[in-house]
Structures are given as C-alpha cells and as structure tokens.
C-alpha cells in the first residue's frame, strides 16, 4: 500500500518537473524570452537592460536555476496587460473557475448516472433508445455551439437568463449546462454499459433468487458494482472538463482562469500564460493523483497489480 502511494507520488513529481522544464525550454527554443516577457516596440537600450535585469544573458543552466527559484518564491512576474503580479491576477479568478467546474461535475453526476441507469433498465423500450440518442447528440454537439444555442434561446429570445458574467446563481445555469452536456452524455453511456455488464452477473440472479426486493437488487447489488469503472472514467475526464471550461468561460465572459488564458494567448501575455499552464497542469495532475489514490484505497486489485 505505502509502496504504491510512494510510487504514484514520485511519478507525479516527475511529471510536474517535466512539464515545468518543457515550458522553460519551449520559450527559449522558439525565440528570445525577452520578446515574450516585454511589450513590443521596446528600444534596443531598454531591451538590453531588461535582458540583464531578468538574467537572460547568463548561461542557460543558471537561468534554469533562477526559473525554479522564482517558482519556489511564488514570484511569477508581472502580467503584461494588467501590470500586476501574476499570482494576484490568478488569485482573483481561480475561485470562479473552480465553482464552475464543481457545479458542472455535480450536474454531470446528478444527471448522467440516473439517466444511465434508466437507459440500462429500459434498454428495450423507446425511452432507453431516446436516452441513447440524446447521449449521442451530446457527444457530437460541441460545447460552444450548445452555449450559443442556449444564449440564442434563453438570453436573446426569451430574455430569461443573463448572457455574461458570474454574479448570481442564474448566471451559472447556461455555462454549467453547456459545459456538462458532453460529460453527461458520456456518463450516460458508461453507466449504461457498466450497468448492463453487471445486470447479467450471476450474483444478480442470486440476489433475486433469494427474494430481495427489486430495488435492493438494482441499487445495492447492481449500482454499487457498476459505479466502480464509472468513477475511474470520471476521474480521467477532469482533464477534458478543464479544456471545455476554457471555451465556455470565454463565451460567457466568466472572468475565470480559462478566459484569462485565452486572452493571454491572443495578446501574447506570456508571463500570465506560463504561470497559467503550470498551475492548471499541476492542479489537473493533483486531481488525477487524488482520484487514483482514492481508487486504490477502495479497490485492492489496483495496488496489487501496480505494485
């Protein structure tokens, strides 16, 4: 057990180190870092001064050490657009992004699992087929198209919901729906398939044969076993969810980390982007680590096979 945890932690640490190193070298391979750090149109003299100031005239390995020291100090430089500390800019926005992600996860699980169970139980009826069709559509409709559709109907035609911002609960409805649709769809499919696998198992027949009520058979013997692979898939999809949030936050002017990164890319605000890539990557990897550890704690087969 301890071995598995330590091994997993070490792998995570290596992954984070690789990503940070890639970020460091990517800038130096594609151009002079000062051009990414400074606004355009800098005269040659101040450019040179800045190069010396940031230590960019020193040998690469020394720069690399400086890079790590700045990460350790929480000293990530100034955003080019806002002229404020990058850490402060992110601090203001990260809460909004997290709340959107959590809301979407709750909606995904709250809708996806029950619908998946329904699709499995009524697989031969029109309801089951309709659910599958909807799930398939949810797969193919990209989140930004869905977002636009929702905006068109609920903001511009009916005037029920606000089209931008994140101030009130009403602001959460459309972004959460648009972001979670894909994941609801995939969860319906996974839950359905997993449930169908379980429904055919011998222990289900045994449970029925010994006279348990159908509800207990389905939910206690069936669902509990069916949910194990579903939880794994959900953990893996956190990465995809973050990708989706980048788009959705932009559409709804959410002022979270996602639209910050898009803006930073469009305007070449490299200090913000560099920090954003590092922090989002770290966050996603930590979530994956937690899911893995939790999963290993629940299911002994995992740690035995990986140890």
């Amino acid at each position, binding site marked *: 057990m301890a071995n598995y945890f330590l091994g997993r932690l070490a792998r995570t640490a290596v992954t984070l180190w690789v990503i940070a190193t890639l970020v460091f070298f990517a*800038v130096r391979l594609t151009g002079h870092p000062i051009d990414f750090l400074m606004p355009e149109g800098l005269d040659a003299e101040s450019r040179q001064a800045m190069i010396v100031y940031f230590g960019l005239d020193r040998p690469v390995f020394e720069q690399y050490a400086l890079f790590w020291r700045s990460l350790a100090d929480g000293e990530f430089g100034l955003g080019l657009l806002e002229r404020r500390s990058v850490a402060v800019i992110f601090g203001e926005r990260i809460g909004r992004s997290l709340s959107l992600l959590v809301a979407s996860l709750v909606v995904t699980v709250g809708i996806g699992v029950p619908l998946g169970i329904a699709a499995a139980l009524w697989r031969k009826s029109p309801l089951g087929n309709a659910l599958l069709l909807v799930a398939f559509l949810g797969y193919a*409709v990209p989140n930004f198209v869905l977002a636009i559709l929702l905006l068109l109907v609920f903001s511009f035609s009916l005037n029920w919901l606000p089209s931008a911002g994140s101030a009130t609960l009403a602001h959460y409805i459309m972004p959460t729906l648009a972001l979670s649709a894909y994941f609801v769809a995939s969860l319906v499919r996974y839950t359905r398939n997993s449930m169908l696998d379980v429904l055919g198992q011998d222990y289900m027949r045994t449970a029925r044969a010994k006279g348990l009520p159908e509800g207990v058979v389905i939910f206690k013997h069936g669902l509990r076993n069916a949910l194990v692979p579903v939880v794994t898939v959900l953990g893996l999809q956190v990465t995809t969810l973050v990708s989706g949030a980048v788009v959705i936050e932009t559409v709804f002017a959410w002022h979270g980390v996602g639209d910050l990164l898009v803006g930073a890319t469009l305007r070449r605000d490299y200090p913000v982007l560099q920090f954003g890539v590092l922090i989002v990557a770290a966050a996603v990897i930590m979530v994956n680590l937690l899911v893995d550890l939790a999963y290993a704690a629940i299911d002994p087969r995992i740690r035995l096979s990986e140890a």
Partner: protein
Amino acid sequence: MPDAGVYEDTGLTDKAAPPPSLRARLARLDPLLTFCLALALLLAAAALLAPWIAPYEPEAQRLLARLRPPAGFERAHPDYLLGTDQLGRDLLSRCLYGLRLSLLLALFGAVAGLLLGGALGFVAGLAGGATDSVLMAVADVKLSLPVALVALFVIALAGSHIAVLIVVLGLAYWAHFARLVRAQVMALRELPYVEAARAAGASNWRIATRHLLPNIVSPVVVMFTLNVSNLILLESALSFLGLGVQPPTATLGSMVGQGRDYMASAPWIVASPAILIVLVALIVMLLGDALRDHLDVKLRER
C-alpha cells in the same frame, strides 16, 4: 485532392474484413448507416468541389447586401441562398470553403498525430525495456494535460499559422495513438507466427513491416476515424476562440465565433456553420462507431 479521403477511407477500410461483394455488404448495413454514408459522401464532395460549386468568392464583400437572412425569410436576397453576414459575404460559399478547410485541417492533424504517436508507440512496443518506459512516461505526461492548455501554449509561442494549427491538432491526440499501437505490438510480438518468423531468421525490420504492421491496421483505422471527428471539434473550438485560422479565411468554427456578435439580430450567421459542425462531427463519429463494430475492435473509450 486529399480532403475527401476522410470519408472515402472510412467506407473503404472494409477491406480488412472478410470480403463479400460490395452489394452484399451494403445490404447488411442498416438504413441509418447507409444514410450517414450517403450524407458523408455528399459533404465530402461539397468540400472537395467548393471552388467550383460555390456561387461566390468566400471573401467577396457586397456591402449593399449586408445581413440578409436565408431564402424564405423576410428581406431575403434572391442571390444568397443561406443569406449574408455583416460584410455582405455569401454564407453558402463561406460554409463550403469553411467545411473544406475544417475537414482538411482535421485530416492533416489526425495524420500528424498518427505518424508521431504511431511511430513512438511502435518503437516502444517493439523495443520494450527502458525505451518503452521513457516513451510511455512522455505519453503519460501528455495525457495528463488538458488538450486546450497545450494548444494555447503552442499557439502563443508559434502564432496562429495553418502549419502551426496542424501541429497543434497532431499534438492533441498523438499519445492515444502511441498507447494503442504499443499495446497492439506488445500483444502481437509474442504470438507464435511472429516467433516463427524470428526463428526463421527474419530481421526486425521484416517482422515489423510484414508481420506486425498489417495486423494493427484495423484498430488504428478505427481510432483514426474517431480522432478525425474529435479534431473537427477541436479545430472549430480554437477557430471559434479566434486562435485558429485567422480572418478573413473561413472555417466553420471561426464563422460561428465571428457571427457571435450579431447573434441577437442576425442568428442565421452562426446557424448554418454551427449545424454543419454538428452534422459533420456526428456523421464521422457514427461511421467510426460502425466501423468499430464492423471490425470488432475493442478500443478503450476516451
């Protein structure tokens, strides 16, 4: 012209299955799939022939006929079947050219991902040992990063050039190909016929090209097809955000992105490209699924 290939490939890869006559095979297809196949060929033809069938140049403006709705609506202009945008550009022509570019990018991106991931996976699976560990560790790093994050980073460094975009799309899912090909190679290389070839003195190169490659084609083709539909969505999302193909060139995503500002007054500008994106992604996905069932390939779902 390679851009129609995405659909024709999906239709033709049946060659990996036992080969009854084409007619017998078509008869076994269910109606939905037949419909999809027909629609796919139609869309592929439309994309391929865009320069010849589009009624106007996609970037030609006619400011006197701005923001006209599609035919059948009030104020519709008889010259423009799908209406015009804020600059008086013909939406039908832009959709056709946009479809063409979107498909082309997705296809090239998928090929790039396949070549990169396939080569690395093949080497990892064949070499094993330390090579395998290192390559798969790199693939794991890639898989743990959100696709959008990598895309933003590469675009910020290298700019939104079409070539950069193909690299971005190729980088998006190469690790999936790498893992698939590695797993296939590892499963195959222990099989008796490979051992027999090795015992008979065949070189590594010969074993790789004659015995391994032909046998991993079908799962790779299936993943490639599903990958194309993912990349259509990714490219359109990037272009939608203004990070992909730059204006005035039309792709389906950028048409939706730029039409967004006129959504309240002229919803048709976003409607046709949005519908096209959904339609194309849905069809490619359905075909990929059908292909998977047909070839009975077990793929771990994304």
